[in-house]
């Protein structure tokens, strides 16, 4: 299997597109280097044998916390932080 601890330009561009970030060519080149160094430092985690270990999503168990099905109206102005609106709707960018 290919060494997954390596990163290249194509991958950085693909990821930044998925994450909606415009990276300049300089930035892409720099990230390839920096992220490459970081991954190199991280690769030692491969050495740890985690056979049979459950993933810890929280450091202590967080289980069965919920609320009853009751409606409560929030008195607030959803537009308090946005001027991009029209007729009570939020205005957003087009799809295509």
């Amino acid at each position, binding site marked *: 299997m290919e060494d997954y601890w390596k990163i290249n330009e194509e991958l950085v561009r693909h990821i930044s597109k*998925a994450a*909606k970030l415009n990276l300049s060519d300089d930035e892409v080149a720099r990230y390839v280097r920096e992220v490459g160094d970081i991954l190199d430092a991280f690769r030692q985690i491969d050495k740890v044998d985690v056979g049979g270990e459950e*993933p810890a*999503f*929280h450091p202590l*168990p*967080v*289980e*069965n*916390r*919920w*609320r*009853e*099905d*009751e*409606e*409560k*109206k*929030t008195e*607030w102005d*959803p*537009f308090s932080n946005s001027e991009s609106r*029209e*007729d*009570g*709707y*939020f*205005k*957003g*960018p*087009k*799809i*295509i």
Partner: protein
Amino acid sequence: MEVMIGLEVHCQLATRSKLFCSDSTDSRESAPNENTCPICLGFPGSKPVVNRKAIDYGIMVATALNSNIARRMYFSRKSYFYPDMAKNFQVTQYEIPLALGGYVEVGDLKVRIRRVHMEEDPAKLSYVGGDITNSKYVLIDYNRAGAPLLEIVTEPDFKTPQQARAFLEKLSSMLEHIGIYDPSREASLRVDSNVSIEGGNRVEVKNITGFANVEKALGYEIVRQRGLLRMNMKAVMETRHFDAATRTTKSLRKKEAEADYGYIFDPDLPSITLSEASIKKVADAMPELPDQRVARISGSYGLDEYQAKVLVYTDKNLADFFEECCTRYAYKDPPHAANWIINYLLKSLNWNMTAIKGSKVRAGTFIEFLGLIDSGTITERYAKELIKEYVDTGISPTELAERNIRSTPKINLEEIVSAIISSNRQAVEEFKGGNARALQFMIGQVLAKTNKQADPNAIKELILKMISEAK
């Protein structure tokens, strides 16, 4: 050519509040963005808290679908950017969903269920100055954002669009009977479908509302794919959108081989552990499912299975209405009631474009109506006319019948029969010549003149009498 169709049904659960916050889920009378709060709008610092009822409803549905309920389940974040996403990730269940496996029997077909899981609804978009492909900007209403959805995914077991539709109708009835879904709410059931033919590429047709549209969309898509195959072209793996106006599917975007949603377990939410006891408790409290109801109704009320099925599957409220008539009002002839409901009442309701629930029909007045027929106060023929006015106005049938009698002038039947005979010499001759239909014709003429109020037998007697006397 072998067709494979799979469905993903998104059902909006009829909880009072949203999945992760306390906003109301009922926005029918609300202004846009009225039922929102920092949580469903994804404001920085906000945190979700699970609505317990949504889990209970999920357990009920999974039980009804014979599905294996997870004893411990988790929520996941599914990341993708879109203007209808409050956080640009959707909280759903990926690796460990509510339930796996299961089946639904629809006629002869056993539809296998792949999985059932809970997730939150995105916001609603409207496209200004065009449609999704060419509008200049979008308008976003977050009232729907965060509403609880149950997603039911089937295996690609459907071979025809009709089978898919039949499944949806049955599923819808089941969900309605369980009580977790309100079909009167807009777009309560949304369907994504996957279609492929002859082992070719899978095409996704997204976000179809209405079962008739699902059938149409699938029908169109199969024809389209077949057409491509005949020209030795393959259908592209893509996502298409159903345009109800033109009844066609249109390409939306090319589907990347399994879009990368970068799933992680949602660290703001707890795991949900269900004990055997808690699952059993919810399952035991489950209301009667449609199949069970059909069996019980036909058994208890002496209906044949077909009648029971129509009552139960057309509209749950119709079956409720029937049972209310027979139990609460202790109507003595259930098959008769069923007959009138199915063959006449339903027609009038459809004509008025209302369902029984929103109509003016009430069990009390309907029983009255049946009573008028049973006692011979009105003829069956007249009843079939009267029912239309009754459905339209909701006024007591007795009252309506009396009004009609008062408002129509007293019928001089002899006069009318005499007039018909004199103006239909040829029919009289034909009848004398042995043509029974000529008699029926004349009876019909008289009936029309009397606004169908006169008794056909009485008319027949009179005609025969007058003809023989005229000799």
